[in-house]
């Protein structure tokens, strides 16, 4: 019970973090038709910027500064990169963001080196919020959830209540019409791209110190975010939300199970002889399979329902 509750809370905070990434990716994708391969690289930049600015100004200003910086870089990327390759088609756009991810990783190597940097949870949040049974629940996790939910609510408000949000929504489905009405659609695109990148940057600020800030973080998180978007259904915010929580829990829960398949089958009454040729394969524990589970889920989803949970479009 104790394990269950704590893990549930952890999966929730991780799932919300994933949603912060996948929502930006989804918005950019449904609006511009571009899958931003460098999205997780902006997440990484967020973490590194927070580390760097945090050293100068402290954590709280960094919480705002880093996402803004990432957003500015996103805007520049859209204006001087993506917009230029747009005329060459989707494959070129995709490859551009792919190449960008490559370059960003190398630039991070260049500036901060290959080893992880010491980006820490701030002292002011480094305490135990409450103790559940015997497990202490860190305040930082709760703070992370708070920021994620706050972000979620403001994103919802911006999209539904403000003028720019309405234009964004309209541009999702009818870009030509919105342009014909006199709105500057390229600028809206740039804003959406920058906004999505800033969200990723914010996720980086929050996730970088909870997990680890290192040059490999972009690729490891990036592919999970893609799984989220495929499982949720490309272009669906609701789908991305459900899938984020789902995959967040799958990853968090599976890491916690130290049972092997042999134990599981023994529980079901099937005893595997240690001389059996299956023994080696089945002695893998569930926690060892944790990195593979999200991808297995994706493959299953593709076989059962290629559109994803909430997907409406085929391509």
């Amino acid at each position, binding site marked *: 019970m104790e394990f269950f509750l704590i893990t549930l809370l952890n999966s929730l905070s991780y799932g919300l973090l994933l949603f912060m990434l996948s929502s930006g990716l989804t918005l950019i994708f449904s609006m511009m038709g571009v899958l931003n391969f460098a999205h997780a690289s902006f997440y990484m930049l967020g973490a590194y910027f927070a580390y760097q600015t945090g050293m100068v100004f402290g954590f709280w200003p960094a919480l705002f500064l880093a996402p803004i910086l990432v957003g500015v870089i996103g805007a520049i990327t859209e204006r001087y990169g993506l917009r230029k390759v747009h005329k060459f088609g989707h494959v070129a756009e*995709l490859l551009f963001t792919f*190449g960008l991810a490559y*370059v960003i990783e190398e*630039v991070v190597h260049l500036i901060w080196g290959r080893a992880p940097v010491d980006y820490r949870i701030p002292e002011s949040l480094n305490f135990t919020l409450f103790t559940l049974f015997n497990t202490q629940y860190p305040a930082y996790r709760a703070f992370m959830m708070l920021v994620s939910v706050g972000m979620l609510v403001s994103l919802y408000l911006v999209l539904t209540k403000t003028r720019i949000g309405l234009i964004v929504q309209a541009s999702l489905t009818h870009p030509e019409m919105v342009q014909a009405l006199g709105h500057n659609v390229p600028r809206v695109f740039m804003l959406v791209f920058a906004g999505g990148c800033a969200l990723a940057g914010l996720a980086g600020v929050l996730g970088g110190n909870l997990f680890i800030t290192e040059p490999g973080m972009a*690729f490891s998180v990036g592919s999970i975010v893609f799984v989220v978007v495929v499982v949720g259904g490309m272009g669906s915010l609701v789908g991305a939300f459900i899938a984020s929580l789902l995959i967040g829990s799958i990853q968090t829960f599976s890491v916690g199970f130290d049972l092997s398949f042999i134990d599981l089958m023994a529980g079901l009454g099937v005893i595997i002889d240690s001389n059996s040729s299956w023994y080696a394969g089945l002695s893998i524990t569930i926690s060892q399979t944790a*990195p593979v589970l999200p*991808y297995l889920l994706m493959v299953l989803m593709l076989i059962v329902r290629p559109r994803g949970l909430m997907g409406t479009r085929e*391509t």
Partner: protein
Amino acid sequence: MERALNKSRLILWSSVALLFVLLPFVFPGGFALSILSQLGIAIIFALSYNMLLGQTGLLSFGHAVYFGLGAFVTAHAINFVEAGVFGLPMSFMPLVGGLAGLVFSLLLGFVTTRRPGTPFAMISLGIAEMVAASALMFTTFFGGEGGIVTNRTAGGVVWGISYGPQIQVYYLIAVWCFISMALMFVITRTPLGRIANAVRDNPERTQFVGYNPTRVRWIMMSLAGFFAGIGGALTTINYEIITAESLGLMASGNVVLMAFIGGIGQFWGPIIGAVLVTFLQSFLSNFTQAWLLYFGLLFLLIILFSPGGISSLITIHAPVWRAGVMKRLLPSYMFALWAGLVTLTGIIGVIELLYRGTLVVGVNVAVTWVFSGLLVLVGAFFLRRAIRAVTQVWEDLTPELARWS
């Protein structure tokens, strides 16, 4: 006319074969030989990748999976041969890798090719991650961190070939590279190859002429997996060790770079890319830690300014060459080359300083900083003008060329 075309094609292919035979004599020595061996493998891999991207329009970020799995299966097969489980001459071992690549791409391709376009790209990446993560789980098959070690002389001496000396391995690679190249070229000319092009351009319409585009993609992917597996097998034989790195995301990304830098629009484009990338990797990595960054920047530049890759830069000049007006372009090209070199020197200076500057402190560093920065600014200023000049000459030439064609 068709006969003349066949004849020139025959001459071309025989010269390629002759080149493969002669290369070790032109570039003797151990280092050259190991580079040449790598080149042959890279060419197979890049061409097999282009069966997906260039010919079928499938942007895969996980092609190394089939390369790597082919390599691992071959490694185990070689070890089985050594243990006497079964016998197979080493010369045919690449077929084992090819078949392994085929089987895995048939299986995984069935899932991934269900959706074209952007989802395919994401899914291929996910599958690649899945296989890479599994590789760390199943240590019996993948050998964990250390990988699987083999012995390429396990097959014994057949027809006087032991595969002990590297030169014999080179010729094994050369032969399989030639066969694979020829087969992949022939496939582009078959009904399947043609329909794959049609599926790339307009999948919906192929349905209305009787084809199932998903099936076409699946078959093309399986064939690409077959050839990638051959490449993988050759890697195993070449290095006698194979690690999980060979099927990882880096390897998959690398082949995307090769194909795209070389150009996906022509059959021979990826060959250029494979050669260039392999060379840069082998040489640049000796000089600088930042070689991956140069690589990424080159890739971005090509996407931004010449999305058809190097091969398209060559083909657009063919009509200019035929019309005999190449000399009109040359002055502006020389100008651009000069400005480009100046900018490049500056950029290299800045990047290298960032990598090393923190280590050496002194006056020289400051001077180099200023100098490099200056070079970048001056170079960029002239480069803009040069690009404008080049565009202008092209605009002047276009109507003339239209008259020629």
